[in-house]
């Protein structure tokens, strides 16, 4: 280690001022003293759950604090100088020049009013690294390297004119254009579909290798970070838990927390065989949204047996959430029939009986927007008890407490407001609300997507336990195949509004596959070194063979 590190962080402390509702603003600590080195040309993965401080540390390498975040102590040395002591002018030279940033959502991080080329080359030109012509040539070269279509002209487009995956690559080009020494990748593939993620991941990895740039790669997905980084640092609650090379962290984690992260999704679920009389049967559903002239669902059929779980899998735009809207009656289909518990469901929700409404409940992805922020947990869970069963007073309270017990939250939560709950707790309250109606079917729309892996795991275990206890059936809408493997009894794979594969879990997940399911399954990152190269090589061979 004779070489001087590109980035040297010593005792980094980061704090912020928070303004909780009903309390005085106060300071909290986000990062409690972190040390690490990054050598030129190397990639360090920062991994942890939300609130671990990984993004905050990443931005600290640009001397930037998001919102009210302040860098309160320690040293951050970039290229041999402590940037926490540098003048604002020097920091401006560093940002966009020596260190650049790729954010999670390129769609939000590109200025909608400006052409892509202008934004990609702006830092390089303003920092005086390249003249306009040179910078543009360099950008086109990067577009080509990152596998963007029509690299000569894509820069003339506006951000809304390219897809999410393409924009994420443009963001990478934006970061690489000024020829930085270090790029901070902050969850660059998290918002993408799994089949898009693999291409972007490969493009980023190749660009890092070709340009010899060093990188901080921030993510909560250990399988992803294992593909790109040389070293991994595991963070929790603003402290370093473990630091090691990628191989050691993945294959021989020392700390308990790291082991939990590595072995996440340890749920095993015995698949149940479908029964003869399905609880829900959807036949030949075709649907479109009002004011459009194309169908988003084409001839979709699926069955769900009582007390079982049907996973509806697909990428964004596949029509899986639309299917949920059809089943709940929010979007009456143009054609097709819904049968529930032996009776025909009317297509539109207002005409359904109160029994139909009660027996069919829903849980959403965004727990915090699915609850009224001005109602207490007790009011939220109590509402269906009152509405469906006419419970009042002490009886209602008793039942609410019983439900809180079932979702592993205690009685003390009854008077809390949603803002006082963590993400996982909020989702648990939503589950209790659905359960309060004693439904036969709960539609779970991406209920774990917004949660950290360990928290999501807890929710899935809870759902499985409740299924066994209450004999409730689930339709589990998700894009996450790991979740599907963990809990499903049968699976419907959707693609562009059609069911392309359907059947019991063991059948759907066993070869021979159709092309789309194969692509989908092989795109899910696996927690082993060299997985990315292996998949890409296999695909290349297959396409060469064709």
């Amino acid at each position, binding site marked *: 280690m004779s070489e001087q590190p590109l980035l040297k962080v010593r005792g980094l402390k980061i704090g912020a001022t928070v303004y909780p509702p009903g309390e005085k603003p106060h300071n909290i600590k986000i990062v409690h003293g972190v040390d690490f080195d990054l050598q030129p040309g190397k990639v360090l993965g920062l991994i942890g759950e939300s609130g671990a401080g990984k993004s905050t540390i990443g931005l600290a390498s640009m001397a*930037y604090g998001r919102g009210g975040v302040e860098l309160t102590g320690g040293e951050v040395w970039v290229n041999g100088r402590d940037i926490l002591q540098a003048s604002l002018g020097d920091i401006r030279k560093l940002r*966009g020049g020596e260190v650049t940033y790729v954010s999670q959502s390129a769609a939000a991080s590109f*200025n909608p009013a400006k052409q892509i080329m202008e934004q990609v080359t*702006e830092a390089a030109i303003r*920092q005086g690294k390249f003249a306009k012509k040179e910078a543009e040539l360099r950008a086109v070269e990067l577009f080509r390297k990152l596998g963007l279509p029509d690299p000569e002209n894509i820069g003339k487009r506006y951000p809304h004119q390219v897809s999410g995956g393409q924009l994420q690559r443009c963001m990478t080009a934006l970061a690489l254009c000024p020829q930085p020494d270090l790029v901070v990748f902050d969850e660059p593939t998290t918002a993408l579909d799994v089949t898009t993620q693999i291409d972007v991941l490969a493009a980023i990895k190749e660009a890092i290798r070709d340009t010899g740039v060093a990188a901080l790669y921030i993510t909560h997905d250990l399988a992803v970070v294992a593909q790109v980084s040389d070293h991994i640092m595991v963070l929790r609650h603003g402290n370093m838990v473990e630091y090691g090379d990628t191989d050691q962290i993945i294959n021989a984690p020392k700390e308990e927390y790291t082991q939990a992260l590595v072995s996440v999704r340890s749920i095993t679920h015995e698949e149940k065989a479908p029964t003869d009389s399905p609880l829900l049967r959807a036949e030949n559903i075709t649907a479109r949204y009002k004011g459009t002239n194309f169908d988003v669902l084409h001839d979709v059929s699926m069955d769900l047996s009582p007390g079982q779980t049907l996973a509806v899998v697909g990428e964004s735009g596949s029509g899986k959430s639309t299917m949920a809207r059809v089943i709940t009656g929010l979007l009456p289909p143009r054609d097709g029939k819904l049968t529930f518990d032996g009776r025909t469901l009317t297509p539109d929700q207002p005409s359904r009986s109160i029994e139909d409404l009660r027996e069919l409940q829903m849980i959403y992805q965004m727990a915090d927007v699915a609850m009224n922020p001005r109602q207490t947990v007790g009011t939220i869970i109590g509402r269906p008890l009152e509405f469906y069963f006419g419970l009042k007073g002490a009886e209602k309270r008793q039942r609410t407490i019983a439900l809180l017990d079932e979702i592993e939250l205690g009685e003390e939560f009854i008077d809390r407001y949603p803002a006082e709950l963590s993400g996982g707790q909020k989702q648990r309250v939503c589950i209790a609300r659905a359960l309060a109606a004693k439904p036969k079917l709960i539609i779970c729309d991406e209920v774990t997507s917004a949660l950290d892996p360990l928290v999501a795991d807890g929710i899935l275990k809870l759902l499985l336990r409740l299924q066994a206890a209450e004999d409730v059936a689930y339709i589990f809408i998700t894009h996450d195949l790991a979740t599907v493997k963990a809990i499903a009894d049968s699976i419907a794979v959707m693609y562009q509004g059609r069911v392309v594969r359907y059947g019991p879990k063991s059948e759907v997940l066993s070869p021979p596959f159709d092309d789309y399911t194969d692509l989908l399954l092989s795109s899910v990152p696996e927690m082993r070194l060299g997985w990315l190269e292996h998949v890409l090589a296999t695909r290349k061979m297959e396409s060469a063979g064709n």
Partner: protein
Amino acid sequence: MHPILTLVVQRLALGILLLIAASALIFGLTEILPGDAAQAILGQAATEENLANLRAEMGLDRPALTRYFEWLGGILTGDMGNALTNKLPIADQIGKRMSYTLFLSFWAALISVPLAILLGLIAVRYQNRWPDKLISGVTLASISLPEFMIAYILVFFFAVKLFWAPSFANISPGMPLLEQLHAISLPVAVLTLVVLAHMMRMTRAAILNVMQSAYIETAELKGLTTFTVIYRHAFPNAIAPIVTVVMLNLAYLVVGVVVVEVVFAYPGMGQYLVDAVVKRDVPVVLACGVIFAAVYIVLNIIADLVSILANPRLRHPK
């Protein structure tokens, strides 16, 4: 058809409809006023017989609807009828008066709009620091005072005490431009102070709103200076709300000058309207009303169109 073209045509059609509705409203309102033109000419002492004769002569005894369409047809062909008091064609008068008003509004706009936007940008740059507070304080104070009050204060200091500018904005067609500008300097200053706060506050609010966006963070992480971030990245995305409020204030500069014109005895539309109201010259009031309505509607359509054009999603569809 290009989606923008469709939107433009829609807005124009809507504007025309709105203008017709406004003209009907103005006509209807003057109809329900007590007394009519005949009454106004002959005065309170007129006998019923005299009134009836004059009404027949002026065609006022015919149904209101017939007269409305006659009047509307006249306006569409540029004939606004004659003033009751001096029998001169209204269109000629309005042409002359309007050019004076537009001259005044033009200079007020030329100073106030760029100044308001610049002050708004500065307020954002120094948000919650003393330049922001100073700008907000001064502009809010000036908008809180009634405009005649500001006018008299300015007259007191700059005309009476310092002799820098005339207290009466007397201009005539033959005057050299510089003299004309000197003559209207105080009314322009009053109008600027009146409209400045609204536009500046809106600019500040609209840009601050945009400053919350993720792409502002991207711009900051490119090492751009705060002011570059504001005018290159935030301002282009705040154009729509800013233009809307600018156009509203431009309309006010044309339509709302009544008080200022009267205070400075300026021979513009406002003065003309006030004179006509005093003399109960209903055709002139009607004509002025329609012109003012037209100015409002046209400027608002322009604001709408600029907002549409400012949206890159509409300008460059997928």
